[in-house]
């Protein structure tokens, strides 16, 4: 079986008893494809023949034996997308990138594939680029979408974007403000917190813009590390009852001025967060 790691304890090493699919999924997640030497190692460790492993790896569409590009472009060719012109979109994407489905551009920027159905049939024809859905695609915007993907869809113009706005927060224990007007991030006072991980203690400053993930910290935090957060005033640990929807790590609650609670994921690099305005929080 390949159960999903519900509690976010991703440090767990692959066990012999794990199913092959789960092992391969982990490898695929790590490298973006299944490298041959890794598959040979899997064969040696699990005692399965390489033929078996190759069989499973090529049976399922999720696995790739070739390295993928930095950006993954999928064109949906499900029935609904097909009748609404999906093949034309797929062809235009192929033309723009100069590759066929299943291939990767020579500069390793893009991998392009077609998929059978993404379940977003009402929006057809649909394309997905790096996890972002583009509904009602037309050939004329393909180029634009591909170019934007190079910049990253998360990129925001802090000054002009209406969707980004500053919030003021305070400690969920002592209610002391956590804002630090002396340290600006994104042009606004940052949120100052004390953190610890491993044997390291130090400060962390977060952008107070809801929608910006910019931080600076005293010590560099290795990616994926779960960090403990403390109030710099009452020194209590900021610990909530809930876990991150994205990765399962504990959430860190703070009180929002104006009403409500914001929670951010304690894992470095995870963008999981929740803003509850009515405070009716789980």
């Amino acid at each position, binding site marked *: *079986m*390949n*159960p*999903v790691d*519900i*509690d976010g304890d991703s440090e767990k090493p692959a066990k012999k008893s794990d*199913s092959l*699919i*789960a092992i*391969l999924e982990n490898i695929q997640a790590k490298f973006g*494809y299944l490298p041959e030497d890794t598959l040979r190692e899997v064969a040696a460790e699990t005692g399965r023949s390489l033929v078996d492993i190759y*069989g*499973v790896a090529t049976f*399922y*569409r*999720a*696995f*790739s034996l070739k390295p993928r590009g930095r950006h993954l472009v999928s064109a949906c*060719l*499900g*029935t*609904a*997308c097909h*009748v*609404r*012109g999906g093949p*034309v979109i797929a062809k235009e994407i*192929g033309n723009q990138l100069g590759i066929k*489905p*299943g291939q990767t551009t020579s500069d390793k920027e893009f991998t392009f594939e*077609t998929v*059978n*159905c993404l*379940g*977003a*049939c*009402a*929006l*057809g024809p649909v394309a997905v680029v790096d996890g972002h859905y*583009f*509904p009602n695609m*037309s*050939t*004329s915007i393909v180029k634009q979408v591909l170019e934007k993907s190079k910049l990253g869809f998360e990129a925001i113009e802090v000054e002009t974007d*209406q*969707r980004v*706005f500053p919030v003021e927060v305070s400690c969920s224990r002592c209610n002391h403000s956590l804002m630090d007007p002396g340290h600006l991030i994104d042009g606004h006072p940052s949120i100052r917190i004390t953190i610890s991980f491993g044997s390291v203690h130090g400060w962390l400053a977060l952008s107070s813009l*809801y929608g910006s993930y910019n931080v600076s910290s005293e010590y560099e935090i290795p990616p994926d590390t779960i960090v403990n957060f403390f109030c710099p005033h009452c020194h209590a640990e900021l610990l909530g009852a*809930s*876990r991150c*929807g*994205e990765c*399962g790590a504990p959430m860190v609650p703070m009180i*929002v001025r*104006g*009403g*409500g609670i914001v929670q951010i994921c304690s894992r470095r690099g995870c963008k999981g967060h929740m803003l509850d*305005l*009515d405070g009716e929080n*789980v």
Partner: protein
Amino acid sequence: MQSVKSIEEFIKLSKRITTDRDLQIPTIVISAGTCGQASGANDLIRVAKRELLYKSLTERIHIRITGCHGFCEIEPSVLIEPRGTIYPKIGINEMVRIIEAVDQGRVAEDLLYTEPLTGQKIEKLADLPFYKGQTRTILSQNEKIDPIRIYNYIENNGYLALVKVLQKSDPKWIIEEIKASGLRGRGGAGFPAGLKWEFLANQRDDGVKYLVCNADEGDPGAYMDRSVLEGNPHSIIEGMLIGAIATGATKGIIYVRNEYPLAIKHLIIALRQARELGVLGDNILGSGFSFGIELVRGAGAFVCGEETALIRSIEGKMGEPRQRPPFPVQKGINGKPTAINNVESWANIPVIIRDTASGYSKIGTKGNTGTKIFSLVGKIKNTGLVEVPLGIKISEVVYDIGGGSVGDAKIKAVQTGGPSGGCIPASMFDLSIDFDSLTKAGSIMGSGGMIVMDENTCMVDVAKYFMNFLKDESCGKCFTCRKGTQRMYEILDDITKGKAGLEDLDLLEELALVVKDTTMCGLGHGASNPVLSTLRYFRNEYIRHIEDKRCDAYVCKDLVGAPCQSACPVGTEPWRYVAHLARGEYEEAYRVIRETNPFPSICARVCDHNCENRCKLGTTGSKPVAVRALKRFIADRVDPSSYRPVRQTIPENESKKVAIVGSGPAGLTTAHYLSLKGYKVTIFEADREPGGMMLAGIPEYRLPRNVLRKEIECLLDDNITVKCGTTLGKDFTVDDLFKDGFNAVFLALGAHHSKSMGIEGENSKGIHPSINFLREFNFKGKNLAKGHVGIIGGGNSAVDAARVALRQSDVESVTIFYRRSRKEMPAFQMEIDAALEEGVNLQTLVSPTGIIVENGRLSKVEFIRNELGKPDASGRRSFKEIPGSEFSAPLDTLIVAIGEQMYPYALDGTSGIETYKGGAIVIDESNLSTKREGVFAGGDVVTGPNSVINAIATGKKAAHIIDCYLNGKPMIIPAESRLPEVYVEPVAVPPEDQGITERIEPPALSPEDRKSTFAEVELCYSEEDARCEARRCLRCDLEFTQPEVEEEEFVEIGENKS
């Protein structure tokens, strides 16, 4: 989260949550399933939060983020509770205004949903036609629940069904209840769920039994499971818990497909919260009952939706199905008893327990109880998820809920059941939607995909699409499936490429039946359905591909070539002359136009341009290339003498004489092409100069007379004699022509006689048949329209009459009265637009019932209002009168334009030429021959009022057929697909123009300037604009003409596997 230790404690919690909430606080509900998020719901959420925070409204207005509400077409949408106001397609700025309105306790009227048919604003979700016809037992929960908050589920009676069965502590009762409810598996096959559970419960208890939720929703076009998983994951957990108690199962597994990231995320959160609260895991609510659920992600293989393949996949192996029996309930995962149910089945379980079996089974029909969710997608106006009672008619779903087709194209079929299903034609839309009826019709219920197809969907291509899918997804275990799907695909591919013969259809059918009979799992059994059902209902489309090499939906690329060329009745190559124009080669462009069409200047003005209607730019989201305006630029600029048609000298033809009756576009074209072959042609024209309807009917502001006359003059040569003022039936008969030594006769006398309405008083003063009205003006300059003018009809002659009347001096107002809606008007849409711009009024859905005459002159016309009914089998909407809606309109002039036909006196009974009751001449369409030998007919006299370009096409065909006839050759026109052949090097687009995608409209007189004059309305492009517009062409031809382009097969599914 604090865990709940006992049933009593849970009931207390549930009561507290339910009573604590204040239902009167306005709540902004934002639908943020995958569809919502893709359409921008996340932005709305941020902006809403910002507004509430900054305006300190967090206490007064609440916000709830939910899964999909089903009406995907209007995403991103916002629902305001408790009022029930729905705001469709909301942007960031509208969100701000909505919050303002909610705060002030009012409704932002202008942002409400507008019903497309009536133009009415509708405030409440429940009143939208899309929701009205539904019974949303399962899906309505989605609006009420934030899926990542378990308390929100509990607030809506969540886990109370679990409490009920825990308290009852009687597994047999649960199974009896599920059996009594009549619930049939929603995964597709419809096996009774209660029976399956009973089998599992009866398995000898040796410790481990599995329950599986099959969430591997692999059917392309179906996504209802995704919506439930994303929007209400706890309902599935609760359903599985009840199932576990009933069957004694010890482990639960949700097998969800990897392509649903949001569903996986919400499930993970829901499972975690359920365990933390104590409703899942060990000693649930202190009852001693334990059950855990694990999530397993599929790795992308369609066949894993089949239960035995799914089991193999859960075991970590290749997902190949195996023979049954033993059935999974006997030997499933790791050899242990396993019951597998679909997502939607599980979601129904808590409902049945809560509402009791007898309450549940009241919905639906006998043997098909409850509701079923369908994903209504494809060529339909209201796309989305539709939950309806089983037994509802297809037509109710497609037309009432779905709102019918998106554009003007008619709906021709729905495809149900995914790749193992079939296509049901529009003529069978009265069919009841239930497991058994659909199977009988050659399709299946399947998981509930309902893909609507219209005239622009090619059914052969659909069959090929599914077969391509199936050949890739066939696991390969059964030879007949592996090889059979492959071979069926190859045959279908040959058909779409024009390479197949009729005998291939028999082979296809035989193969399909073999695959059906000799395969092991559902994939193989159903694999033939797409082929068999399309062959059964759409065989004519297959035959058209094979015999005529035509794909009428313009889908099959190897038959269509460049769509503009394929669409043109005379086979003009628009891509070619547009390419020359872009390069500045105007004379070359003119020769390309003139090669296929003797009337470049006329068609540049009045053609209904099928080429533009089919232009790939237009069908893929942009506006089509302005082909007609570009033709006008060329025709205006280049002297016709740059093209000299070659007249052949064929001695045996010179002695043969052909008579052509009528000098409209059909007659003149025939004369021209016969003349080029050396025949002597005489044209008999009733009017005083040649031109036919182009002269008598088309107004001068569309077609200036000097242009018309010049073009006709160019065609007449030594071989052609025109006799004007001679009328068939008055001055001569067909017999006379043969007596005079003509060897063949072509009847192209057009339809110059207006039909009458059959209402008393129709011959009174002030009432004119439209053709008479137009002729009197066009030939004699008479202004027959006076005062308030009414036009009855919706065709081109009605609109022409209206626009001519508007330009006459004594006219105060002009109104067109049409019996159906604007969408159904047969006139060219751009002509209707132009008429309305000039100030013509349009009243639709009215029929005339009476004429009131005062002092011997028309004074009023009585009307009754109509309403539109459902589309008939042809897809056109019928209409019926609304009793009591009579009204009258004072009118001084009435012009009747309800259709035209041949002069009734043209042919008498002795001619030997058969006519239909309506006056049209009966011909053999393949060779235009009438019932009398040597007499052929074509143009409006056969088809009724039609376009100039179609008349020219008939004229060309007639010339070819008559040539064959006179030479004793078989009268056939060989079918061939017209693919682009000539390579024209594309012009380099200057960098500053590269972003230009907007169509440049040709200049035109403003409505103010033109409505009082007969000067030509549409003007000619400047050279710069023309070349710029020409560069927009996508050059579909290059795929066929560019030498180095290899055969491109890459837009195919399944090649993305490494």
